[in-house]
């Protein structure tokens, strides 16, 4: 089963997205606090990280750099999602692999995830 870590400080979003990912056939591991992200990633070694853009205590660019620099974590596909408007450019500038806008259409999320994971 493909493992995906979801990081979001909004519990309702976190839990519903987790349930949704499981319906889509993924094993989803939720993280609601910024400082837990790296330990969870090291422990779980997921194929992908679905990361909220604005999460307290998380510098997205810094996080992406850390992941890319770590040989153990460099393989994780990073997909960012946000409820912000005009955030389309952020994922490219930080070097993430993809972007999903909240609210998202679940089949569309599934399509993007598959694409990112294939790459």
């Amino acid at each position, binding site marked *: 089963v493909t493992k995906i870590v979801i990081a979001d400080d909004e519990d*309702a*979003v976190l839990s519903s997205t987790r*349930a949704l990912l499981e*319906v889509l056939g993924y094993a989803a591991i939720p993280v609601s606090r910024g400082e837990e992200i790296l330990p969870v990633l090291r422990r779980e070694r997921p194929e992908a990280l679905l990361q909220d853009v*604005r999460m307290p205590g998380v510098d997205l660019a810094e996080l992406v750099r850390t992941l890319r620099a770590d040989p153990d974590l460099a393989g994780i596909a990073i997909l960012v999602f946000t*409820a912000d*408007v005009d955030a389309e450019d952020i994922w490219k500038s930080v070097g993430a692999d993809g972007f999903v806008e*909240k609210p998202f259409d*679940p089949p569309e999320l599934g399509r993007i995830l598959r694409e990112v994971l294939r790459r």
Partner: protein
Amino acid sequence: VVDPLEGTLVSDAGVAVGRVQEIAPGGIRILFPSEADPPAGIVPGAPVEVAVGGGKGDPVAGQVVWIGSTTDGSSVAGVEARIQWDEEASCRQQQAGTEPVLDLAAVRHRTPRYSTLARALDELFVRGSGESFDGPEGLVFLCRWARALTGAEIAEAWCFGERDRSWRLRAVVSGDSSEIWEEDGPTLPSDAIDFLRFREAMRCGGQLFRNDLDPGVPWPAWARTPGARAALLVPVCGREMDLGVLCLFDRHRPFAFGPQSQRDAVILARQAALLLEQSRTLESLRSSEEKFRRIFDEGIDGITLNDEAVGTYLDVNGEFLKLTGYRREEVIGRTPAGIGIWARREHFREALRALRARGSLRNFETEFRMKDGTLRCGLYSAARIEVGGRPCILSFVRDVTALREAERELEKSRQQLAVTEKLSALGRVVAGVAHEIRTPSTYVANHLFLIRHRLEALRAALPDLGSEIVQVLQSVEVAVEGIGRIDRLVKELRRFVRQPVSGRAKASLDEVVRGAVELFRTVGQGRIELEVDLAPTPPLPVDREPVQQVVLNLLHNAMEASPSGGRVRIATRAVAGGGEVAVQDWGAGIPPEAEARLFDPFFTTKAEGTGLGLSIARRIVEAHGGSIRYETRLGEGTCFVVFLPAEADPTSKQEAP
């Protein structure tokens, strides 16, 4: 007997009785001054004989033909007698050949002193009216003539300064050489006392002369010439002050300057004073005229002088010509109305009326038409003046076109800034609100998906409840659609407050519009029949996506306004300076009460409209330097036309997000 030295008529007794006025081939005119009675023999009809003194030439016989008083200005100068030569004497004289009976030139030739004074005065006058006498050349000129007149060995002329102890210029002429000193400061203190005393004496009209200088006699040190035996100092006195002094010296002849020399020197000095004063007056006039001429010529305003009676331009300055583009010869002699410079005739009449009523006019703002037809904004000021006795109008025009444009520009950017500020504040609010709305939307949408997913599973597991479950699923679909609508509204709101992003590339309008039309067809639900007529336009600098947004908004509005199955036409065409896209519908038209607020944000006539479509469209079009207009008829339809320029307005800023 005519005394050739004095130019006088001397009686047999040797007394000077009259002055020779004129000698002509036919006769002679003699003036007997008032003080002296004419000699007894001078009565009309009396025969007389006139001879040139010194035994040269025989006496000539003639007859007194006329006696009468003669005036010198207003006062009677004396009695004049005209003597006509006898016929015989004239003939004899003519037969004898060369010389006329009595030749005044010959008389003058024989009386060098007289002719010298006359010539000196003449020459001085000519010299003084030709160029400024107030300079070294003038003083040297004066000295030369003073020497020629008085026979002085050394002639010296001083020009005093404006202060008591100062002199400006000193010229010394001796023989053929002349020397010039220029000084602008006080004389030496030891000399100053003498100098002042001398000036004081001079002011009183005196003159100083010494015919036998004794080294023991105190003589102004500054005016002392070593070894002088005779000296004559004459003031050069103007009407109000002494201007200088003329000094004559002789080192060889102790009694060089007789009364005649003194009188001649005084006359010469007066003439020089007159010329000096005249030169100074002319100079100050010239410099003040020059000053005014400079103001006229180099003024930053356009200045014109017009004849008040007929209105013709008498003079215009360079700035006026530069401003209007006319050449001097195109305006001089013509009238303002003739060249049509006042763009608004009623203003011209109003200005003239005010000018006649008040004598002057200040800062009257109006438009002027230049030679090339362009209009410029000017502040017109004028005054009625007299030039050489002729009533004239002196006008000043200041070009304030750039100023007014800048003011308009400033006002525009001020308004724009206000809008931008409002929008950016609004933008921040909207961005924050959008995030807050989209977060719950996300989990509502997620849960709706999960509900649907589970209901599908339930429906498969519980076929008995199938119809019930389908109903719930339909409710879920409506809820999902509601979420979609919330999100579209949020995005549209956001798009409205977002500043246009710069990303202009040259593209032809028809091609950009074609893209929008394709897009519209995929979402346009086929509710209307779209007629597309895209004529090619030249490439225009456009921000493709926003312009397509404009087209989509217009198409959407047209569709909304049309009855189901109605027709909407979209067309592009090239126009002067750019391209146009027109969207025409045959719907209800825009009600008049809606027109005023048509482009206001959030103004809508539609139940489901956000009221942002047209205001967004206008902002995008204006950011391109273009314009949006429409024509509408109630019950007949509406046509919106967007114009985009080929050259983007350089003043329109491409704003950052």
